[in-house]
């Protein structure tokens, strides 16, 4: 092991720390409109990170993850509206139900691979959307069909997960993202992470080493669904509205997947990075041209996807971090021996 590498904790991380600081501090000093963009960045970053926990690590492409987002939103909101249960408690109930649902769905789906898996998740997503749109009641619970659930504005109440200003919402979201990133990091550096990466590389070899494929895939699925359900609760509370047409939509699922893939699947910070890049671009574009050219931002998503697959199949994460590290060396002039060891990994 190269000991010089640890001489300075900040070495090689300066821009990463700077980025985190920007996300933490800057939203305090900008207009509400910009705060909204920051919230969307973190929201999509959160969803993409959750998607990454199962799909990024296992290597199967889920194009129906909006279902689990919607489950979280619906359950916690229904608990609040019909059961007067605080979303802070409800979101945990929602998360547990969503995780259980994810496992039930995953059990048959994980027998399929590649396009078959992707198609099944699309079909599942569409199935749930159409079902919710066409049913006023399920098991006696009033889900209000295509109308969706509208939450009344009651003012600034912590217990009801309702805040007067955007910045409070933002910091709640920061906490969610931090937990998700931490969970991802823990997975990546644990037995589970190693097993999932092995399954992704070669399922046959993994199985011969005693890895129960379905078990570990389902664990990842449960964690992913558990976490994305929180994002759903946030969505409902922030927008004060949950409609099946948007939250269960195919577009939502694809957006979540694309952000994670552009960012870098299987990495800890990649999905968040993807959101930092894509969300501001698309928000700016739909702000500027949304009226005259609907679909422009989704067009950008598509083009980005094609370019990333062609030129950066691992996502932008590697290239972006590499670029900033180089920049850092240029600015601070760390010695050259270190630079080599960072560039290549320890030999």
């Amino acid at each position, binding site marked *: 092991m190269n000991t010089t590498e640890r001489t300075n904790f900040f070495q090689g991380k300066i821009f990463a720390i700077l980025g985190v600081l920007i996300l933490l501090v800057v939203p305090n000093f900008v207009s509400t409109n910009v705060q909204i963009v920051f919230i969307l960045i973190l929201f999509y970053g959160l969803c993409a990170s959750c998607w990454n926990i199962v799909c990024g690590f296992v*290597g*199967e*492409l889920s*194009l129906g993850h909006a279902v689990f987002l919607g489950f979280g939103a619906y359950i916690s909101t229904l608990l609040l509206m019909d059961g007067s249960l605080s979303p802070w408690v409800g979101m945990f109930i929602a998360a547990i139900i969503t995780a259980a649902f994810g496992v039930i769905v995953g059990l*048959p789906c994980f*027998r*399929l*691979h*590649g*396009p*078959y898996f*992707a*198609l*099944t998740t*699309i*079909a*599942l997503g*569409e*199935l749930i959307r*159409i*079902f919710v*749109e*066409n049913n006023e009641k399920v098991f006696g619970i009033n889900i209000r069909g295509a109308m969706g659930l509208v939450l009344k504005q009651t003012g600034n109440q912590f217990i009801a997960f309702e805040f007067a200003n955007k910045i409070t919402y933002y910091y709640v979201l920061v906490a969610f993202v931090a937990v998700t990133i931490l969970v991802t990091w823990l997975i990546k550096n644990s037995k589970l992470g190693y097993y999932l990466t092995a399954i992704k*590389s070669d399922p046959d070899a993994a199985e011969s080493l005693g890895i129960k494929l379905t078990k570990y895939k389902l664990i990842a699925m449960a964690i992913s669904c558990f976490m994305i359900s929180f994002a759903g609760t946030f969505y409902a509370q922030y927008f004060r509205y949950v409609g099946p047409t948007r939250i269960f939509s*195919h577009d939502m699922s*694809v957006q979540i997947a*694309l952000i994670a*893939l552009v960012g870098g699947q299987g990495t800890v910070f990649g999905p968040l990075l993807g959101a930092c890049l894509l969300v501001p671009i698309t928000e700016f574009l739909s702000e500027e041209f949304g009226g005259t*050219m*609907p*679909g*422009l931002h*989704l*067009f950008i*998503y*598509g*083009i*980005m*996807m*094609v370019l990333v*697959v*062609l030129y950066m*199949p691992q996502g932008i994460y590697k290239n972006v971090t590499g670029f900033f590290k180089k920049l850092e060396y240029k600015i601070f002039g760390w010695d050259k021996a270190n630079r080599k060891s960072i560039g290549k990994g320890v030999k």
Partner: protein
Amino acid sequence: MLDSVLLAFIYGILQGGAYGAIALGLSVIFGVTRVTNFAHGAMLMLSTFLYYELYTRFGIDPYLGLLIVTPILYFLGMATQKRLITPLLKKERGTTQDPASLLLITLGLGYAINNLFMMIYGSDYKTIPTAASKSYLTIEVGDFLFTTQWARIIAFFAAFVIGITLWFIINKTELGKRIRAVSQNRDAAAICGVDVYKTYAIAFGLGIAAVAVAGACLSEYYFVQPQVGTLFGTKSFLIVVLGGLGSIPGAILGGLIFGVVESVGAQFITSSASSMLTFILFMIMLFLKPSGLLGKGGKV
């Protein structure tokens, strides 16, 4: 009651033929190149807009416009394969394989095309009011009147024409021999002197040309709108998996089953709920026999 079900059945068969026509190209592309073309629906939508432009600007009926649009889409398909998919296939021959990238690139392409047209044309529904869409065929079925546009009947038969043409090209021509060789074993075919990537491009082009023909039939009676592609694209996938990925008769059979299930199902529940039936049918099929009704088996 029985009559109305019978009527729904006939409507379903007609609609199913159109579904089959659209799904055929997708099935051929998968059968040869193993690419699940998520941009298939977008290509269909693109072709219908070309027909729309030809009709509104020059008054050319889509049935005639075929002669112009099909070659354009053929070359578009070839270009897609050459510029986007072949580079990935070449890269794949290295150390690590990532089949997901093939799926993603077509997904991205489809997304880009769909939203490009959304930007240009907006989400308004357009129609092409041709003769075939305005003339009706009426037959008495028991107490009911069976009425349908001639365009729908033409679309139904088009499925068989496209299917037989594709089957003939693949099974009876010199080009088809190369296509079959490549689809069975691309390395062995390469050793025998077949230009694998060129053959892939031709097969992809054929698949997209087939969807252009289906697009002509569809645009005669259906809306022209950017989101039409997504609707039919998703359905095509379900149909092709149901019938067996890569199987030509399977695509038509799958289409017919889908059409009937949707149409007859709508007699008993609401029509949007009946499209849920097709999703359920698809999932049951996948879990029981992933290779589809007429598929050749093999691991998924």
